[in-house]
């Protein structure tokens, strides 16, 4: 019960931070203050909160679970590629989004698209697609909260109650604190789960008697030696995964968060330190996930390893349903929790449990982003703010937060988690395929609203097509694939145990390439925005750039 009490104390602290932020903002019922913290975040909060917003439950639980099954490849696949691509997109796109937001008062990416491409309902369509891809995250956040609280309390807190508490706490601090409360909570949470990894490695490492003997034993056994290499993943799949981090800047909650910085220079530290923050969180989790394969004195972990072995040796003779059951049993998302329960003292397990809760509760930013999108892109755009005023707009945003949290909780109670895990898998690819919109809007004068519409429509259709394909074609046994279509002797469309492959690549690769091509060719075939609009985005910047360069030359 002690770990559960520590976690409840943590939840109370988080709630207090949200309410404290509400007190700080009292009297300021302005949309910009509530949804963007008045564009006033300082460098430390901006870095830690942005990083925490990007790190979902997957960063801690999912990464160790993936490493438990696939080995060290998890780090290169998901962490180090993100450490290059995400700060690069923040440097190139985030800074420009910030500057335009500050200059023209934008609060969402769609507001910028509407202005830049002179469109109205196309913007609404983009908002709808963005929202549809975001909702599964909120549901999975509630599910993760319920599951984790239940696991930490040893089953004393039932799943429905744990989910309700987590949903209520998140809803409360987002409701009261808006962006200011959410970013302060995220900062606190990021510090917690950054400490978590280091402490977990030290505790588990010393309890296991050091890692050298464990690694040598893994290397010596034919069943586990592949976990220390990347044999279980193909190089094409590894390459494909570098497209996934493109989704980060296209996520509305990240793009909106870029608008909260007080100064553009606050991006500097974030861009430089981001890869190191990823290293600090992911490396311990991945390493411990691999090491979990040596925890032979835990019956739960032994059971998972046995399920994985059966799946590998007898999976081909089994029915798809039987394979799904075994996959569920072999799932390693809770190996870190099991190891902590096994090795950490009770009080420490509680603190580390709070660290895990911090990662699980990352859905706050998505809820706030949805509320911002609804009130700015729909309510305000279709005349709500003009008719009812800004105060009502903020109240509408708060009401929206309550409604979306209740709906997410009710869905989380009824639907199986696997559906939403799958949806998130598609959502990453979907947002990556939407990233050409931002690039085109900011860097390509010739881009048009029709190009943006074509790319968004393609993204929506491609996500639906992949989802339908995967739900109708059962996943094959590990080590085998189901080839569905061939072209010129090449495997064009394949169902793999982990998902779908198109010419050996993950679907995200063709999705991003086709989205980019559609943006280019449809834009070239249609009329570009008026010269006055383009001048606001490009000509002025170039003139100022020239001026800056001249000043720099004079100074030199």
């Amino acid at each position, binding site marked *: 019960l002690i770990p559960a009490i520590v976690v409840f104390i943590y939840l109370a602290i988080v709630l207090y931070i949200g309410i404290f932020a509400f007190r700080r903002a009292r009297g300021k019922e302005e949309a910009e203050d509530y949804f963007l913290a008045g564009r006033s975040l300082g460098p430390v909060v901006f870095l830690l909160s942005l990083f925490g917003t990007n790190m979902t439950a997957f960063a801690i639980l999912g990464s160790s679970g993936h490493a438990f099954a696939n080995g*060290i*490849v998890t*780090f*290169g696949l998901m*962490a*180090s*590629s993100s*450490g*290059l691509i995400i*700060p*690069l997109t923040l*440097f190139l796109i985030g*800074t*420009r989004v910030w*500057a335009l937001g*500050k*200059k023209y008062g934008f609060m969402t990416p769609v507001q910028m698209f509407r202005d830049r491409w002179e469109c109205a309902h196309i913007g609404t369509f983009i908002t709808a697609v963005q929202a549809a891809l975001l909702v599964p995250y909120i549901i999975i956040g509630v599910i993760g909260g319920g599951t984790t609280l239940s696991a930490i309390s040893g089953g004393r807190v039932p799943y429905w109650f744990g989910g309700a508490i987590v949903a209520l706490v998140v809803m409360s601090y987002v409701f009261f604190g808006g962006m200011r409360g959410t970013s302060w909570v995220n900062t606190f949470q990021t510090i917690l789960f950054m400490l978590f990894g280091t402490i977990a490695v030290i505790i588990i490492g010393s309890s296991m008697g*050091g*890692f*050298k003997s*464990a*690694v040598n034993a893994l*290397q010596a056994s034919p069943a586990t*030696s592949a976990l*220390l*290499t*990347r*044999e279980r993943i193909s*190089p094409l799949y*590894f*390459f494909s995964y*570098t497209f996934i981090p493109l989704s980060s800047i296209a996520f509305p909650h990240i793009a909106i968060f870029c608008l909260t910085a007080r*100064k*553009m*220079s606050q991006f*500097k530290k974030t*861009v*430089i*330190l*981001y*890869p*190191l923050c*990823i*290293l600090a969180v992911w*490396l311990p989790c*991945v*390493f411990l996930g691999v090491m979990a394969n040596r925890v032979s004195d835990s019956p739960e972990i032994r059971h998972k390893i046995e399920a994985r072995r059966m799946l590998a040796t007898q999976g081909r003779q089994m029915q798809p349903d039987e394979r799904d059951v075994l996959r569920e049993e072999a799932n390693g998302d809770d190996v870190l929790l099991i190891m902590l329960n096994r090795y950490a003292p009770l009080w420490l397990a509680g603190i580390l449990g709070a660290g895990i809760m911090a990662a699980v509760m990352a859905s706050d930013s998505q809820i706030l982003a949805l509320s911002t999108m609804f009130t700015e892109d729909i309510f305000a755009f279709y005349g709500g703010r003009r008719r009812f005023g800004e105060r009502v707009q903020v109240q509408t945003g708060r009401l929206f937060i309550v409604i979306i949290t209740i709906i997410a909780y009710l869905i989380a109670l009824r639907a199986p988690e696997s559906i939403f895990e799958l949806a998130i898998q598609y959502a990453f690819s979907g947002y990556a395929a939407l990233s050409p919109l931002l690039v085109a809007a900011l860097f390509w004068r010739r881009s048009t609203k029709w190009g943006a519409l074509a790319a968004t429509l393609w993204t929506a259709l491609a996500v639906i097509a992949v989802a339908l394909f995967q739900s109708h074609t059962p996943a094959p046994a590990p080590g085998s694939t189901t080839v569905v279509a061939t072209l010129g002797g090449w495997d064009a469309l394949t169902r793999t145990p982990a998902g779908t492959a198109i010419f050996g690549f993950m679907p995200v690769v063709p999705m991003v390439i086709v989205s980019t091509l559609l943006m280019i060719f449809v834009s070239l075939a249609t009329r570009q925005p008026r010269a006055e609009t383009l001048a606001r985005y490009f000509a*002025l*910047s170039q003139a*100022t*750039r020239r*001026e*800056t*360069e001249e000043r*720099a030359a004079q100074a030199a």
Partner: protein
Amino acid sequence: MKKTLLVAAVLVLYVLHQDFWNWRTASPLVFGFVPIGLFYQACFSVASALLMWLLVRAAWPAHLEREIEEQERKETAR
């Protein structure tokens, strides 16, 4: 020229992420327990941070910052 070099540095690092030469081997174990593939990718993360530092130093979009500062100055003056 500076811009070309920076773009080349980003592309080189992106290519270096695909370290196929470490694909099927865990040896040598760095510090006696870190497989070489994992150590390489950890070093890659440090290299990414260094590249970002270089980009911020050499290609920071200062003109955007100046534009906003001027706008704010004008608003304050009004």
